């Protein structure tokens, strides 16, 4: 499965977006309770871009993020991630896709019974080919890059909030994913650790050439974005089409 869409990608031109949504609609519930959460989303995100998605609570940002991350299957319209169509994708296809996306959550969600290094390792172990390389070395190098060289063998629950979030960033980026999706990564952090965390993300993403889609309410970090999209009531208020129309 991986092979097929990796080869797809090699054929694609540089201009082709890594994330492409067309007339994407999404509903929750069924029957009388069916409620539309996303309306006619059209969005293209290109390789290496850092996009910040912002908007009030309940506007559908997280729903869109989970769709793009392959955590839900798309119901209506078209959603292409790394060249793979997610409309009616099977559970197995979604699981495969998720191996190539890095996630950073609001809560760090580290495995508390593992050390920082082991947590980062878990992300590398998803890829069979990594076993022929120095997994531990790569994990330690990644923890160095997020400034945690002193905490490599600490258990996750003995780290501070900011340190945990940096481990989570290391875990998301260590396998060099094409896309990183982050949901309120700074919400649980103070101003300085939050700033540090996104700057590390920005720096590493630029080095690896990966795309970052970041959902946030935090105005202090908007400046790291290449582009900001605004969402309200399930509609994108600032996608390329509407900008041109204006």
């Amino acid at each position, binding site marked *: 499965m991986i092979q097929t869409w990796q080869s797809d990608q090699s054929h694609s031109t540089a201009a082709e977006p890594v994330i492409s949504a067309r007339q994407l609609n999404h509903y929750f519930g069924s029957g009388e309770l069916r409620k539309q959460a996303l309306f006619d989303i059209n969005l293209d995100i290109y390789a290496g871009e850092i996009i910040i998605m912002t908007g009030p609570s309940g506007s559908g940002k*997280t729903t869109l*993020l*989970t769709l793009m*991350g392959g*955590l*839900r299957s798309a119901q209506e319209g078209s959603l292409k991630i790394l060249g793979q169509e997610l409309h009616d994708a099977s559970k*197995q296809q979604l*699981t*495969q*896709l*998720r*191996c*190539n*996306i890095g*996630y950073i*959550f*609001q*809560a760090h*969600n*580290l*495995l*508390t*019974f*593992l050390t920082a290094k*082991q947590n980062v*390792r*878990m*992300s590398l*172990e*998803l890829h*069979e080919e990594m*076993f022929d390389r120095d*997994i531990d070395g790569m994990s330690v190098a990644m923890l160095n890059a997020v400034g945690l060289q002193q905490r490599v063998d600490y*258990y996750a629950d003995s780290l501070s909030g900011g340190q945990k979030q940096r481990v989570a960033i290391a*875990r998301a980026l260590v396998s060099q994913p094409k896309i990183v999706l982050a*949901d309120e990564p700074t919400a649980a952090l103070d101003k300085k650790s939050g700033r540090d965390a996104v700057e590390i993300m920005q720096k590493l993403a630029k080095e690896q050439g990966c795309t970052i889609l970041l959902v946030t309410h935090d105005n202090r970090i908007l400046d790291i974005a290449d582009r900001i999209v605004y969402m309200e009531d399930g509609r994108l208020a600032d996608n390329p089409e509407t900008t041109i129309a204006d």
Partner: protein
Amino acid sequence: MFRNLFRKTPLAWFQLKREKNRLAVALAGIAFADILMFFQLGLLDALFESVVKPYTSLQGDLFLINPLFESLNVVRSFPRKQLYQAAGAKEVESINYLYVGQGEWRNAQTRTNQPTMVFAINPHNSAITLSDVQAHQNELKLLNRMLYDRAGAEHFFGNVVQELQQSGSVPIQFNNFQVEVVGTFVMGASFAANGNVITSHSTFLRLFPTRKPNEIDIGVIQLKPGTDVKQVQAAMQSELKSVLILTHEEFMAHEKKYWEATSPIGILFGFGAVIGFIVGTIIVYQILYSDVSDHLPEYATLKAMGYSDGYLVGVLIQEALIMAVLGFIPGFVISIGLYSVAAAATFLPIGMTISRALLVLTLTIVMCAASGGIAMRKLQSADPADIF
């Protein structure tokens, strides 16, 4: 794929290791369940072993009994002439017979009566081939002499062994007759009776005045060497329809079957083992369930990262298996200790056998895997879409 198996992070082991208290509780629970199963199954085996103990010292190729003879506890006699009739076959080398009864031994110290199995042999040619019995065979030729099973508990039968060493013979009351104990042998207590004695045919008929000499309980046939036992058995059975003719194994199986099916004791012990299994399953399930519940967001994160449901199920199964094996070890060791305590207290042949250890280990693994299976349902609720 398997090449990388041992290079992967052993998630199950790390998770168990991190919560040492919880692991200790789980292992104690599993060990308890194992001890319960070991003990019940051990008693069950001891029951079967003890009831066939008298049979193991019987020497013979074929055995004749009344079809209503259910066990040594429920003996029915049959006419001796049937045995003589069977002896007419040309393959027969020799015949022998036993009277079997349950009498009352009066404990000289406490003056209480003890139910005791009496095996009556021919003192010229004993069907019971224990070396102790053969050594005292000549003394049994005199009337009112018997041999005492020294495996009987002292508080039941009095201090017979020591008195015997001092004076050479001990007078006791048996079925209200005065008899002399002139020697000892070892057969072992059983669930049927607290102890055993061996005496001669003539003494037996004196002790049990209602018994007739020509009504015997077990007929023993020795065949000529090299004869096909099964073939002779079939031929004899077709001629003698009123008795049951059994080989040595069949005779033992006949006794076991009685205890297995007819007596409630076998069922009770089996039931105890089932209870142990259920208790263990519940304990392991509780541990695994709370493990899954506590780590639900993390499991959901692993799913979001691209780990499949199968991987997480595998982690759960590994946890269950690790607990099964680690819990079995203390259960096994403690059970061996308890067996020796119980054997010393009851004189029943209770001991650890490899086959029982393997059985309980298998049951433990099944128990843990079943708990893992139930806890897996909780795992399904780890939806990665909910953690954003």
